[in-house]
């Protein structure tokens, strides 16, 4: 085997430009695969981190009648929780409401949250820092959509626990930036104590976000959803993105492998005399097949080396500076930061290396098998097989 590697190395280096063209294409594919998967992994990591920080915390205790995917459950999907039951939890009461910026009606989810909570990244401390009677905060996407800014007053209409409409002017005390659209788009946040007063639903919550000290326990009428189960939707979306994106890099890899396959097929035809000479000098056919297969897989090894030369600085730069995402990316409905920092983990790198090496070896072996059927006398004469 060592001999096959020695000979393959010499043959490839000796082949000159033909080798380096194949290596170049394969190295490019290798880097693109790493880049794309690193980007998705970086996005995945960022989306998980931000979604946990802004929305899910360490899990959520959901009222049994509340379904996050069904707004019709909001009316009944809430219930009281005692202070003891709320220990290590941030209660959130969700009500449907409307605001009237510049006279237009704008349906919103009105969410009450504690001013002093620290479990979520929401800047709820802004409630306490304001003198406004009814302070609200909202995300920048929401503020843009409603054409509101910090300091603006806007009419809010809501219904109390009896279904009676009421309205009051609320003041935007903070517009925050977040990568998590589910705490931003169509939502306004206010102190839960105020919302309890406004709705008459004192101590009620629709859901509670757990902090890291929370210990899951049975609470009648409530269901605990662990962090991982809450992230399942996000994971599914990212997995779908990864699968659809893989078509692009698999096509690229296929082109590179086709180039190797083509070179190997040509080699078997063009190098028949050489093959015959190897056999005449005492190599077994299996050894010659092995030599040609190793030559093919060595393209991938060279591609790794070349890929490292331009890939490490390029990917390191991207991992350091991040990749800017266009403003419309928030419309995808999941957390997308303004910049995504690709993550190139060991698993990704080892997996990509194995993918490239194994696939290059397979496409090299397929044409090389012909050698095993070659008559050495015909090979020495250079007759076509």
């Amino acid at each position, binding site marked *: 085997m060592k001999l096959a590697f020695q*000979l393959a190395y*010499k043959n490839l280096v000796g*082949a000159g430009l033909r080798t380096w063209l194949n290596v170049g294409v394969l190295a490019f594919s290798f880097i693109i695969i790493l880049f794309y998967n690193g980007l998705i992994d970086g996005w995945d990591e960022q989306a998980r981190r931000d979604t946990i920080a802004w929305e899910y915390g360490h899990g959520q205790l959901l009222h049994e009648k509340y379904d996050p995917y069904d707004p019709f459950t909001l009316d009944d999907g809430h219930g009281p929780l005692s202070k003891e039951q709320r220990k290590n939890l941030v209660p959130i009461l969700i009500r449907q409401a409307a605001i009237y910026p510049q006279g237009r009606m704008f349906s919103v989810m009105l969410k009450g949250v504690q001013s002093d909570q620290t479990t979520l990244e929401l800047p709820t401390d802004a409630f306490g820092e304001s003198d406004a009677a009814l302070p609200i905060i909202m995300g920048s996407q929401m503020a843009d959509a409603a054409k509101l800014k910090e300091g603006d007053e806007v009419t809010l209409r809501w219904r109390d626990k009896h279904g009676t409409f009421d309205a009051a002017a609320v003041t935007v005390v903070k517009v925050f930036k977040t990568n998590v659209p589910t705490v931003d788009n169509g939502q306004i946040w206010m102190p839960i104590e105020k919302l309890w007063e406004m709705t008459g639903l004192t101590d009620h919550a629709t859901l509670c976000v757990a902090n890291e000290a929370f210990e899951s326990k049975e609470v009648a009428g409530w269901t605990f959803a662990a962090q991982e189960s809450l992230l399942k939707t996000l994971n599914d979306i990212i997995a779908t993105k990864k699968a659809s994106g893989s078509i692009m890099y698999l096509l690229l890899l296929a082109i590179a492998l086709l180039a190797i396959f083509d070179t190997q097929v040509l080699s078997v035809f063009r190098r028949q*005399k*050489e093959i015959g000479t190897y056999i005449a*000098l005492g190599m*077994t*056919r299996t050894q010659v097949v092995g030599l040609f297969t190793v030559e093919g897989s060595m393209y991938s090894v060279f591609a790794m080396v070349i890929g490292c030369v331009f890939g490490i600085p390029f990917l390191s730069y991207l991992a350091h500076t991040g990749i800017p995402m266009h403003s419309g990316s928030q419309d995808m409905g999941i957390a997308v930061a303004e910049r995504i920092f690709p993550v190139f983990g060991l698993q990704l790198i080892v997996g990509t290396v194995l993918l490239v090496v194994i696939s290059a070896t397979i496409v090299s072996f397929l044409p090389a098998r012909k050698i095993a059927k070659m*008559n050495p006398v015909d090979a*020495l004469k250079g007759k076509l097989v």
Partner: protein
Amino acid sequence: MHTDTLISLNNVTKRFPVGEGEFTALSGINLSFKAGEFAGLVGPSGSGKTTLLNIIGSLDSPTEGEAVVLGKRISELSHKESAMLRNKHIGFIFQVYNLLPVYTVYENVEFALLLQNVPAAERKKAVMDALEWVGLAGLANKRPDKLSGGEGQRVAIARAMVKRPQILLADEPSANLDAENTYAILETMKQLNKELNTTFLFSTHDEKVMKYLDRIVHLRDGKVESDEIIDPEKYSL
């Protein structure tokens, strides 16, 4: 001394399929060659010289009859066994040298020893000795495309001889050489034949080569026309 029979051909026949019929390249060949012979298969194109060399070199096997080389029946050898036979005991010299183009002269000669897993120091000495024999030690780092025809053929001789084979098969070794180079390589081969007692078997129709042979087997239409001992004194020993 020609005491040990290295090659024994008994009623060897070789046929090749041609279209729907067959072409008989060799027909009922009975020959034997002993250690240290410097013999040639002589005949016009198509007389079966190269086919016979290929069978002796275990690159091919007879359709009928028996070819025994160094005690091994060629038709019974597996691919691996015939590769082993060539690797250890048989050297080839080809008409167009068949040097490996991306290797240097040194690496071409070294190749046979790499296949035998000879240790590096021993390998280096053997390669340099072989290049000294053929007078090309100074061109060790050159690639085949930088060599003249004569130099290329001498590299091929060094490559064939470096493993000290018992049998060396040379297929039209002078076909691409001028007279001066032909005589030079023949002198080299004759000297190696004497020094190492290697059996040389040529396929040729070159008069210059024939002058050096101790035994000439004339082939015509795949049959032995005559088997001529040129140096009876040597054969009587």
